[in-house]
């Protein structure tokens, strides 16, 4: 399949990109890595008049510390998440998730901001922004704004992004020495979409969990925090009984959709298995 004809514009600045979008009457798409957008265009699931290439906008690049957060530029490629020392030091959960994102050649092109903007419910990084309590930095026709990841994901491939807005960066609170994280997913083949995936970040005093954020993907229309399980763990040390309580809480936290391939009960079972494994690793100091 070939994409429908469109015009192409390479923007040098955010303002140029936003301006081009407005001039196209919002019948336009921003393209960065394009690893999901290009197939969507080729399959004609989308057919905009104008494609605005944002990959040459310097303002969208780079990873840096900014106060007590790490600012991850939207154009940071998945492969850079694996190699960038600041990510490993201050956002190790993202480093742990990165090898699971698609295949090497896709990781060479795909961008962090693009993945978050697409909000594929089976993707690793959008879900991890929830676990990390990240903030999404957005530029648009009416100026810039920042939004909590908790308020960003609305429904299937639907986010709080308005037409003509683009993600400029994601801000992640710096990882601290009293925090622990864990990540894993269950997939039939390496690099394939996960049947169920999960990442978590816990803040502890000694062995006691003061706060924990647990986010699942491939469990519904959006990446999903499991607040019942989080509550079941908060204020306690991890032991078999606490882990079982958190697993039991998933029955209320998750409502996997009907699917021929993976029935809801199976997905829920896999989510419980995965949660148990990850909490076990967290307890061992992973």
């Amino acid at each position: 399949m070939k994409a429908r004809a469109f015009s192409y514009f390479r923007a040098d600045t955010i303002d140029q990109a936003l301006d081009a979008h407005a001039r196209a009457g919002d019948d336009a798409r921003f393209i960065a890595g394009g690893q999901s957008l290009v197939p969507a265009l080729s399959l004609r699931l989308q057919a905009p008049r104008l494609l605005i290439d944002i990959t040459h906008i310097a303002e969208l690049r780079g990873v840096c510390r900014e106060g007590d957060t790490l600012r991850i530029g939207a154009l940071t490629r998945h492969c850079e998440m694996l190699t960038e020392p600041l990510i490993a030091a201050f956002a190790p959960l993202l480093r742990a998730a990165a090898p699971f994102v698609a295949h090497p050649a896709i990781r060479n092109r795909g961008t962090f901001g693009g993945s978050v903007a697409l909000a594929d419910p089976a993707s690793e990084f959008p879900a991890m922004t929830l676990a990390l309590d990240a903030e999404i930095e957005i530029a648009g026709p009416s100026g810039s704004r920042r939004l909590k990841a908790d308020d960003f994901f609305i429904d299937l491939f639907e986010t709080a992004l308005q037409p003509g807005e683009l993600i400029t960066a994601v801000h992640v609170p710096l990882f601290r020495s009293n925090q622990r994280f864990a990540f894993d997913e269950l997939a039939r083949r390496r690099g394939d979409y996960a049947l169920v995936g999960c990442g978590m970040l816990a803040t502890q005093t000694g062995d006691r969990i003061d706060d924990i954020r647990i986010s699942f993907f491939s469990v519904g229309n959006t990446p999903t925090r499991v607040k019942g399980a989080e509550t079941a763990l908060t204020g306690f040390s991890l032991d078999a009984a606490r882990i079982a309580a958190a697993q039991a809480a998933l029955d209320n936290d998750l409502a996997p959709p009907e699917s021929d391939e993976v029935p809801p009960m199976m997905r829920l079972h896999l989510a419980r298995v995965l949660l148990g494994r990850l909490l076990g690793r967290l307890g061992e100091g992973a």
Partner: protein
Amino acid sequence: MSGIGDDMLAEEVNETVRVRFIVNGRKVACDVAPRETLVDCLRNVLELTGTHAGCEMGACGACLVRLDGRSVHSCLMFAVQADGARIDTIEGLSESGVIADLQAEFHRRNALQCGFCTPGMLVNAHELLSQVARPSREEIRDALSGNYCRCTGYEAIVDAIDVVAKARSEGGAA
């Protein structure tokens, strides 16, 4: 391209854009429609047919090329996006000799049958070995997870890459 004019939003479907890149070390300029993928440009315009168009949606890996030194799916980008980039296709990698040992080992071990996947496999293996000197078999399989082969069952491909990795790290043979 400094600003966008209304003329750039013309409804014309035959609009073309001049793009320039360095393909296999040679400067190339061609006129492409924005919707033309890089793989179509390489094959149809530049007649470099070693890069194969398989699934055209980033699943099979047959279209891998090196873009500014990184393997990418040439079906997952439009040629206009590559304007200004350095592209190395299987033809360039073959001519330069940098993958001669991989090619010889693929041949020796029957790591191909129909050969459709082979250019992508070689581009991928080349990148893997440039990043990890001695990958484990598991790491090789992981790296190949985005390259489909419907003939060999992969075993011989993993064998070939494994042997070359060992030979390179032991003898410096290339």
